[in-house]
């Protein structure tokens, strides 16, 4: 990996400083109390973290995916663990989609406000019958003379409670037709009377609520349509690599934090005559995990650089999927071994390992499962036939 530029070093230093201010204790308390990490998210907003890839002319930093993964990794490694990852990731998807798809002046203004951190944007794609298979969604927007009317339901939609905008993905029917013409994207204001939601209690990340969302006769003006009617997937496509690499970077950052804690603990803790870190049963698993994390990080950097260069989209997509797969496997193994190093203390909340373990599980499931990265590698990198 090439050395970081002076600018990247500063960006990482800012992310680390911010992460240190909100260390593991902050996240433990908020997880236990199921409290939204408001001060942390506000600090992200104020320091321009939601505008990393937004052009400078619109108030962002105009940087690429190479910079974004550095930020995500540093926020997690610097003290946040998984904590920052979910809020940051799902907060970015809408914004990043707008970077590619915002057209009208109104939409550019929306993007400016998001880049400046004045508003947060949630992202609603998944439905009970369509998580992995996005094309199967049934939420539908019907075109009318002056507007669209939208009905349907979503699930697992994160942070509706604290967002002012929602990027909503729907099937679409043109005026007068009852056939779907494809997916479309709409930018919707929150809160909104036509939207009701209830949180789904979950395994970890209790700082953020992920919700079941019901959409009843939501009427939006034509200006709310992002990108072309029925071409919503094309508008989402430029963010697919980013989505994978953000998860991967979050996983590596979380695992590095867990590993660093475990190494410190293993140097200090004496059970028999010597520190447990001198026993190869402890030392080798930590050493192996570290090596795998380093390998994963190199892949992430390479995939991000390929995406930024834009010269070989096929290779960029393949590498993004491979990096996501490898990073998440390495991170899960690292958190497993780090928890094991703590013995019974690994199970106690005050040592954080049990929380990071719960958090790292999400990365194999959302926003994209490990199997789907393997499907991509199997079909598009290895050229094997598709079964589904």
């Amino acid at each position, binding site marked *: 990996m090439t050395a970081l530029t002076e600018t990247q070093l500063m960006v990482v230093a*800012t992310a680390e400083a911010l992460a240190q201010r909100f260390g593991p204790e902050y996240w433990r308390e908020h997880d236990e109390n199921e409290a939204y990490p408001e001060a942390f998210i506000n600090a992200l907003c104020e320091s321009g973290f939601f505008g990393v890839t937004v052009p400078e002319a619109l108030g962002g930093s*105009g940087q690429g995916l190479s910079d974004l993964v550095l930020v995500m990794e540093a926020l997690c490694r610097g003290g946040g663990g998984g904590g920052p990852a979910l809020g940051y990731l799902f907060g970015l998807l809408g914004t990043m989609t707008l970077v590619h798809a915002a057209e009208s002046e109104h939409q550019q203004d929306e993007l400016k406000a998001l880049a400046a951190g004045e508003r947060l944007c949630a992202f609603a794609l998944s439905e009970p019958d369509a998580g992995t298979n996005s094309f199967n969604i049934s939420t539908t927007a019907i075109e009318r003379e002056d507007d669209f009317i939208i009905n349907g339901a979503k699930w697992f939609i994160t942070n509706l409670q604290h967002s002012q905008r929602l990027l909503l993905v729907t099937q679409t029917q043109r005026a007068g037709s009852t056939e779907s013409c494809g997916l479309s994207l709409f930018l919707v204001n929150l809160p909104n009377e036509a939207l009701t939601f209830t949180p789904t209690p979950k395994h970890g990340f209790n700082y953020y609520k992920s919700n079941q969302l019901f959409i009843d006769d939501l009427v939006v003006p034509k200006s709310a349509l992002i990108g072309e009617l029925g071409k919503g997937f094309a508008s989402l496509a430029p963010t697919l690599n980013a989505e994978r690499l953000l998860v991967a970077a979050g996983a590596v950052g979380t695992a590095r934090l867990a590993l660093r804690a475990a190494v410190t603990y293993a140097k200090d803790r004496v059970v028999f005559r010597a520190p447990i870190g001198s026993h190869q049963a402890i030392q080798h698993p930590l050493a192996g995990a570290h090596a795998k994390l380093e390998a994963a990080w190199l892949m992430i950097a390479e995939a991000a650089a390929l995406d930024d260069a834009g010269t070989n989209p096929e290779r960029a997509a393949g590498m993004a999927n491979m990096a996501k797969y490898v990073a998440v496997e390495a991170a899960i193994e690292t958190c497993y071994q780090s928890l094991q190093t703590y013995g019974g203390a690994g199970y106690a909340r005050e040592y954080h390992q049990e929380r990071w373990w719960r958090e790292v599980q999400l990365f194999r499931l959302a926003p994209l499962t490990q199997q789907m990265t393997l499907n991509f590698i199997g079909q598009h990198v290895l050229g094997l036939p598709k079964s589904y």
Partner: protein
Amino acid sequence: MKALVAVKRVVDYNVKVRAKADGSDVELNNVKMAINPFCEIAVEEAVRLKEAGTVSEVVVVSVGEKSSQEQIRTALALGADRGIHVEVEGRPEPLEIAKLLKGVVDKEQPQLVILGKQSIDGDNNQTGQMLGALANMGQGTFASEIKVDGDSLQVIREVDGGLQTLKLTLPAIVTTDLRLNEPRYASLPNIMKAKKKPLEVTNPAELGVEVKSHVTQLGVAPPPERAAGIKVEDVAQLVDKLKNEAKVIS
């Protein structure tokens, strides 16, 4: 009114400093470097004065090797307007730095010079005072609050046993204490803007200053490891050991 702020590149305060294997110096290889925390407070104070409309330009200066430009850029990202790098090899001692800063003061003619009260590498706590003497300016060291009032400056200092309030005539020198302010983070858009801010590179010869070292570093050693303790039988034995072995009571 122009403010000049001095910043120094030091080992990041989160890093546990280690001696080199040969004991010649502190290990700086692969070690994270940062702006000295007291200098960061100095930058913050100058930027706040600018935001309040009291200061019109914030110039930041660093004396050091080429890599010090990283810290100047960080200060620019925190809100300073332009940077001056006085490029020198090695690690100059406080008096040399003060002389070089005097050269910059002569050229820039700032009304206010803000420095950290000390840098966390050498912990010398000398540069600001020496600069004050060389530049013939009044000084308010260990400042926990400063207020510009026309052509004078009120400085509240943290001194043993309380606070002291000084009134200085501008131009003047301030060195910062921890409680002066809480520095901000460089926001990401400001980091991008910092790339485009001017950074002038100069050297001792251009400033007409001869750099001459007066101190030779003989070696660097870590403090001795703490030995394991012992359990004493009773109070009498404790008193005996404190008196005759530790020699801390008589």
